[in-house]
């Protein structure tokens, strides 16, 4: 008997190593919007000014290393994190520190860098991560400024350099409305992805999980990486959805998350010795003359990215997708983690009896005098109107329809609103990030800001539990 038990254990261990999952997501919503990016890519003219925004890295308090007027190379440290001094943030281009913009209480808002006409890079060692130890990989990532690509769950913050996560997750699906198609942007980057994923395998005691669509071809096969297949509606591409299905986060555990685009940048760092902060992003939405893809450098000024491509009129520029992105002006800069820029019409106009008459140009998951359910494949040109005022929570059972996580969304939100830490923990706050509540926020008839509430809840947990 004892022998058998051992044998079973062995079988279990083996099967768990290679266990890849098929994930199907039915609860969710694919918002179909006009202005999908055409599959063609062009280069953006070099901006005069680039910026690093500490606010892109939630919870990081910057400690400046350079002063205004100093010249920096591409990849040279600009500031580090006060709480975790090993984590450094580097310039995307070579140039001169033009201005350190500060807000209230001297909080650093933006560091503007006037770009030279050409980049000279800080050189790091060129090594195959396969031959490096965990410590060497970590040191290279920290020294080069690639560390901020690694985000920690729970809490959705930049990973702590002292931790070893139980697993690392990379999503190979972008499922948000109009978001960049990884199959297109990652094509031909097999070498970089292999190096990047190999580097990640060194950082965890557990596994590196990559989840891709059923027909994905861009992902190379890499030793030590478990590949899962997933299909279904948004949020199938959100990493929390995948974590929940593959290996949910428990209290006290930490996992790391890296975006596929950034895995390629990390891979390139090891292949070339340079941290080249460029990526291909989608320009999408009805506000673009020609929605398509562009190659941009991190922190590029938006005016340069959209130059000659914006329609006239009252439009909103969003760095990111329409569910989770940041509102920007032309003078603003592309967000660090964003792979899409979306431009949609503003909705700052009144609508006569707009609260009860059918509105064929708007979309609703409800059938309350709205008939969008009759045309499930219609693409909409949605604007930024809230379509109603803020109210208390009334309807129930609607969030669950768009939330595939094994949590009770409304109960969790309410426990956050009353700051009941035990309850938040019991209801699964460790398993969520603000982006997971974007769809519930979209369908909320009470127009509550779910993502803000969740962010506040996570911040309370960081403060109280750590």
């Amino acid at each position, binding site marked *: 008997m004892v022998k058998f038990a051992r044998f079973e254990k062995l079988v279990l261990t083996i099967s768990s190593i290679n266990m890849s999952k098929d994930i199907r997501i039915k609860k969710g919503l694919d918002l179909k919007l006009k202005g999908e990016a055409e599959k063609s890519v062009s280069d953006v003219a070099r901006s005069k000014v680039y910026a690093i925004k500490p606010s892109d890295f939630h919870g990081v308090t910057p400690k400046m290393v350079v002063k205004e007027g100093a010249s920096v190379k591409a990849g040279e440290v600009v500031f580090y994190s006060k709480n975790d001094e090993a984590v450094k943030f580097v310039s995307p281009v070579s140039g001169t520190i033009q201005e350190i913009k500060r807000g209230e209480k001297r909080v650093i808002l933006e560091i503007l860098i006037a770009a030279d006409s050409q980049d000279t890079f800080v050189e790091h060692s060129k090594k195959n991560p396969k031959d490096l130890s965990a410590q060497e990989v970590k040191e290279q990532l920290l020294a080069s400024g690639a560390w901020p690509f690694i985000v920690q769950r729970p809490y959705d913050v930049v990973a702590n350099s002292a931790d070893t996560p139980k697993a690392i997750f990379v999503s190979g699906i972008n499922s948000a409305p109009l978001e960049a198609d990884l199959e297109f942007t990652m094509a031909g980057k097999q070498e970089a992805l292999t190096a990047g994923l190999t580097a990640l395998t060194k950082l965890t005691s557990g596994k590196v999980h990559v989840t891709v669509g059923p027909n994905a071809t861009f992902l190379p096969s890499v030793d030590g990486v478990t590949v899962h297949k997933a299909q279904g509606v948004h949020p199938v591409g959100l990493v929390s959805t995948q974590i929940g299905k593959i290996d949910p986060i*428990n209290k006290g555990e930490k996992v790391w998350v890296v975006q596929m685009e950034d895995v390629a940048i990390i891979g390139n760092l090891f292949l070339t010795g340079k941290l080249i902060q460029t990526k291909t992003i989608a320009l999408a939405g009805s506000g673009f003359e020609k929605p398509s893809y562009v190659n941009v450098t991190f922190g590029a000024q938006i005016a340069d990215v959209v130059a000659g491509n914006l329609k006239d009129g009252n439009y909103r520029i969003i760095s990111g997708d329409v569910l989770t992105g940041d509102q920007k002006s032309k003078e603003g800069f592309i967000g660090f983690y964003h792979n899409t820029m979306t431009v949609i019409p503003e909705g700052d106009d*009144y609508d006569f009896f707009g*609260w009860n008459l059918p509105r064929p140009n708007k979309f609703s998951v409800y059938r309350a*005098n709205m008939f969008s359910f009759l045309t499930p494949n219609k693409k909409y040109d949605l604007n930024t*109107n*809230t379509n109603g*005022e803020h*109210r*208390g929570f009334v309807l129930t*059972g609607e969030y669950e329809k768009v939330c595939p996580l094994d949590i009770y969304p409304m109960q969790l939100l309410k426990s956050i609103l009353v700051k009941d830490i035990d309850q938040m923990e019991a209801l699964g706050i460790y398993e969520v990030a603000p982006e997971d509540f974007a769809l519930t926020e979209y369908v909320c008839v009470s127009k509550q800001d779910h993502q803000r509430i969740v962010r506040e809840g996570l911040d309370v947990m960081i403060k109280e539990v750590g």
Partner: protein
Amino acid sequence: MSLKQNLHNLKEKYRGTKMEQSFNALHTFLYLPNMTTHGGTHVKDATDLKRVMNTVIMAMVPVLIFGMFNAGYQHFGQINGFDAVEFFTIENLILGLTKILPILIVSYGVGLGIEFIFATVKKHEVEEGYLVTGMLVPLIMPIDLPLWMLAVAVAFGVVIGKELFGGTGMNILNPALTIRAFLFFNWAAWMSGDKVWVHGAVDGVKNTAGTDAISGETILGSLAANKEVGYSTYDMFMGFIPGSIGETSTFLILLGGLFLILTGIGSARIMLSAVIGAAVMGLIFNGLVDSGVILEGSKFYSLMNFPFWQHLIVGGIAFGIVYMATDPVSAAQTNTGKIIYGFLIGFFSIMIRVFNPAYPEGVMMAILLLNVFAPTIDHYVVQANVKRRMKRLKVKTA
């Protein structure tokens, strides 16, 4: 300048003044506001709470109109004989209008008035919850209820039942039923018995022979008194029977329920499980009679012997299940919880209906009771999720 611009200017003018909330309530009734998203999702669903509430009201309009015709039909039918009167006549409608419109006006006037005052004092927007409550209230009233009683009850229901808890979305009990329960316990004579369900019975309208022409007795009343039921199943289903203004037509209520389910606003879980719960209780009672436990002569005999499916088409149970049990604020909020909550409402409705000696109807008490227990039901449903999470943690650490 256009109306839109004028109203916009007024809105700016009233910003920060005492007029702000009241003006905005009227303004947003005419125009969807020009507010845009900030900080969260950049697009939002086209449906807001107003649209939801509007849908619920739309589901009630047929019942209300039917109630007006039925008010006249019951009144004239009892005086002149039901064979002599038609249902859809102008005469019936006019009588219904003159009786029911004032009730509707008092219900909305008092209720919304209080909502506006609270909104102004507490400086929040006027919320839409009362739009539905104000419509529900007339539908669950006896036709001859004095208006001042209604006004007092509405004031009580809105202030104590809702605003003290924090307004729309925060109340524990269904406000419309709180209003009805208040009336029932204060002026029981006006809310039960055989005098109030048909217009004219209270005033003792005489027929040519000099006796009372109108009996306002409901079917359940007859059953509780172990009397014959003088209505066909068709009459009961279609609603050509005495009762609260909007509760009689099971047919139209069924259509309203289907409309609510198809629009995605009403909970099919609650409605279906409540019907099942009521049927189960009815079958148990039928079984007691069939197996000889309850004999003819027992005071419960007629009500228990009443076929379980007919229980569903008389009295207020259909109305309660479709329009009141499904109130999302006071109902259970989890999907599993809704099934338990609905089942128990149906189950207790029939039980109370049969055993309540004073008043042979139970749906009001059943819903209020389950309103109170809904958070407890949800608690245990959510605990299952919490336990699953804890178990995962234990497996990991073991």
